């Protein structure tokens, strides 16, 4: 029986000819990642062992993105602790305010992850890099600490679910709608312990930003990772960016998939996840006034997302009573949006533009919700209390849908504003 893309990458990093689902392996890591919330726990664990030195200082990324710019004294102390560790260990890829961006937008952009890599990150959305044809998965701080110590991690080789894509997306329907639709189909534990392997002729029509968004939310279906095949778009994205030689793996023709889910992209509609689970997807709803809109995050803070939001907000006004918060994910995205005049469009429309931060997505800062408030958000989780008060409600949607909702003051799709 053949191997999936994920299995081939894991086999190569474990120094094995082949692996099968369920096998326990130890794999070499090309990059280990943590942020300002998970790194302090990892550093404490690292120091517990009595170790004085990380294994590979150029294969560790520490990104200060969650509660930064420091939201309070405790957050400031956590960042300081991490910064001092990074200085002491001479960590090459330490990103502080001014250089940092939201980690899962930043690492691909900086060329720190690429095709064929095996990556762990102490952040559940580390699965984003599957868009580049890499195996990448979220772990906890202890695994991250062990990764810094040994540059290795043990894995159970996952069984796979194939997601076969056909057709092309209609206007105003994006990668976000694809992944929300998929989670709606299979549920928040539909891919538990498994890999989501995206295949089919529909892949080629999806932009890299769409693929990042889709892989980013693989975890929301419980998956260990999501992964796309490498094509010309992937190569073009990595060209001049990726600092190592890409290694391109392709699934065997007889790769084993536990099940296949087929999605015809051409019939998808703007999709929204209603409270309080990403699997509660809908494409129709009764009138639902909203008080806040967030456009950003590791899911949807890239330049395409900014362009889509600007397309809707250009020449329009954010509805009275709605706070619209736009957060470009990285400094480069911010600068590009500035050059293209997108930031001016946002400000003129009555939205605000924030420096890169995870901030409101996890109820950290920059837009916390009061009791009973509704927010349409391009982020990734709508759990109880995720963005603030436990009676607040989060509706997960694409940048088009979020921007349209900001303009109309109610949950709405892009077509409703034209």
């Amino acid at each position, binding site marked *: 029986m053949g191997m999936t893309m994920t299995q081939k990458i894991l086999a190569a990093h474990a120094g094995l000819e082949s692996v099968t689902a369920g096998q326990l392996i130890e794999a070499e890591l090309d990059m280990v990642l943590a942020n300002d919330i998970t790194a302090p726990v990892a550093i404490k664990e690292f120091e517990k062992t009595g170790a004085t030195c990380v294994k590979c200082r150029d294969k560790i990324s520490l990104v200060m993105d969650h509660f930064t710019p420091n939201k309070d004294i405790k957050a400031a102390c*956590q960042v300081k602790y991490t910064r001092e560790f990074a200085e002491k260990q001479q960590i090459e890829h330490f990103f502080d305010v001014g250089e940092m961006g939201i980690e899962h937008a930043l690492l691909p952009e900086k060329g720190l992850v690429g095709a064929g890599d095996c990556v762990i990150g102490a952040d559940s959305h580390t699965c984003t890099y599957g868009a580049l044809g890499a195996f990448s998965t979220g772990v906890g701080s202890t695994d991250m600490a062990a990764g810094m110590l040994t540059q290795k991690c043990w894995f159970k080789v996952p069984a796979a679910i194939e997601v076969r894509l056909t057709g092309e997306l209609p206007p105003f329907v994006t990668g976000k709608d694809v992944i929300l639709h998929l989670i709606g189909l299979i549920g928040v*534990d539909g891919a538990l312990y498994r890999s989501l392997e995206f295949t089919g002729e529909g892949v080629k029509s999806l932009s890299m930003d769409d693929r990042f968004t889709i892989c980013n939310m693989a975890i929301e279906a419980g998956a260990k990772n999501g992964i796309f095949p490498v094509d010309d778009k992937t190569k073009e994205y990595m060209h001049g960016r990726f600092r190592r030689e890409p290694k391109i793996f392709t699934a065997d023709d007889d790769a084993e998939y536990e099940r296949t889910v087929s999605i015809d992209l051409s019939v998808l509609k703007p999709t929204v996840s209603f409270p309080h689970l990403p699997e509660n997807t809908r494409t129709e709803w009764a009138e639902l006034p909203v008080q806040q809109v967030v456009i950003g995050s590791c899911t949807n803070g890239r330049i395409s997302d900014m362009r889509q939001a600007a397309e809707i907000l250009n020449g329009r006004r954010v509805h009275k009573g709605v706070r619209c918060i736009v957060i470009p994910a990285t400094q480069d995205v911010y600068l590009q949006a500035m050059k293209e005049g997108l930031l001016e469009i946002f400000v003129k429309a009555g939205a605000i533009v924030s420096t890169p931060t995870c901030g409101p997505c996890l109820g950290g800062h920059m837009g916390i919700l009061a009791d009973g408030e509704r927010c349409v958000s391009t982020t990734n989780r709508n759990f109880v209390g995720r963005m603030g008060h436990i009676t607040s409600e989060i509706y997960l949607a694409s940048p088009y849908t979020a921007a349209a909702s900001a303009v109309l003051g109610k949950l709405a799709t892009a077509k409703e504003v034209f």
Partner: protein
Amino acid sequence: MVKGTVHKYGNDVDTDVIIPARYLNTSSPEELAAHCMEDLDRDFVSRVRTGDVIVAGDNFGCGSSREHAPIAIKASGVSLVIANTFARIFYRNAINIGLPILECPEAVSNISAGDVVSCELSTGVIVNETTGKRFQAQPFPEFIRNIIAAGGLLNSLAKK
């Protein structure tokens, strides 16, 4: 052997309700424990006693990779979490920080809130002391039990 009173929850208990992100500006186990389960069960912290057991449905610990979640549960005094299934990152994290967890759907459907439950981790035998019913969960292999007994993965590595 662990033994304690059961706190029971449903499916898809996520790490945001186990420990809300607003408290992640610290990694102190005691401070985290003071807010454990706060957005799901406000009285948990005042009710929980050392040794208590959490029993839940499918996909326990889904969402964020924050290790603060199992740390908060362990520091609150909970000795064991039994669920139908665990989200995969939580599963790794619990073992890595030394919080015992077991998957046992049969036990979950036959244990109620307030029951007293005991478990022998080396055999995976769970006993509902209130009803007298016994259940068999797949026990962890010895190397995993050693990690848990050492108080976590890196403690066990440090000992080697």
